[in-house]
């Protein structure tokens, strides 16, 4: 074999070595989110697990004068005062008890420094899903409801409407405009 000439074109082997990464690349991680699902008016809803502060059995509430109708009151959650809301009117879910399934729970959500409890039906399992699996809400969903959703997820168990916690909390919060007259 003749001696190699350093000035000549690189061999195919050299080309292959040059184009190889310095180390083996791990397969690209798919960003995922963990979603806690629950029943509400016969439909499945979900929230990001990272937004869940606590899950509690239904607690007695003290009604708050002037608060909008969806505000059920303030509850004592192990010494902490938690506002409790009925999410159904805001999410366009008809009121009904039997189809909720399981014992009602209070799902305490946190957004920044604010907490609020949602009365929901049975709380189901936590699912890990790819963030890319979140689809926009269908156009059949009323705009004011769609504004409270991060999107929908098609899980093996069915379609889940994923609530946007920050937007839900902002929308459900009492304001001078949403305050109702005292009884």
């Amino acid at each position, binding site marked *: 074999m003749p001696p190699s000439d350093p000035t000549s074109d690189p061999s195919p082997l050299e080309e292959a070595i040059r184009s190889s990464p310095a180390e083996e690349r791990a397969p690209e991680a798919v960003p995922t989110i963990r979603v806690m699902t629950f029943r509400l008016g016969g439909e499945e809803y979900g929230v990001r697990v990272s937004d869940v502060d606590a899950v509690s059995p239904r607690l007695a*509430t003290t009604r708050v*004068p002037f608060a909008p109708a969806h505000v059920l009151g*303030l509850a004592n959650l192990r010494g902490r005062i938690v506002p409790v809301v009925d999410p159904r009117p805001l999410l366009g879910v008809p009121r009904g008890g039997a189809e909720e399934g399981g014992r009602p729970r209070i799902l305490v959500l946190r957004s920044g420094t604010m907490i609020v409890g949602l009365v929901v039906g049975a709380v189901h399992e936590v699912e890990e899903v790819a963030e890319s699996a979140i689809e926009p809400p269908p156009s059949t969903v009323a705009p004011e409801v769609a504004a409270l959703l991060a999107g929908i997820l098609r899980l093996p168990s069915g379609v889940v409407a994923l609530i946007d916690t920050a937007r839900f909390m902002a929308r459900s919060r009492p304001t001078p405009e949403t305050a109702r007259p005292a009884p």
Partner: protein
Amino acid sequence: MNPSRPHAVSVFVFEAGGTLLGADPREIRAVTGGGGGERRALRVESPQGERTVAVDRVRGIEILGPGDLRPLPEWAEPLRARGILGAALAGRERPVEEREVVLLVSLGRFAATRGEEGGVA
């Protein structure tokens, strides 16, 4: 302030409009009615003059310590403008998780706001 317990406060606890409220007893000028079928009411001073707050039931004075008082949750802060100041856990003899939430109100502001909306008895 309760003289026998310097860090305790006295709260007048009552039920009105289907909720449990508490107020500084010094705001109450008089408790009226309650006899002969007459509805019980509180006479209070508000920025608009004397007002009457209808009461369903008087629970009485409760002595509460700083550990029994809670600020209004941040989410409910807009209601402060209506005279709702915070909350308290009533019933010190019970474990904390079994205690009732009492809404602490400024009776003057509360009565004035209700009055604007025609809700005062």
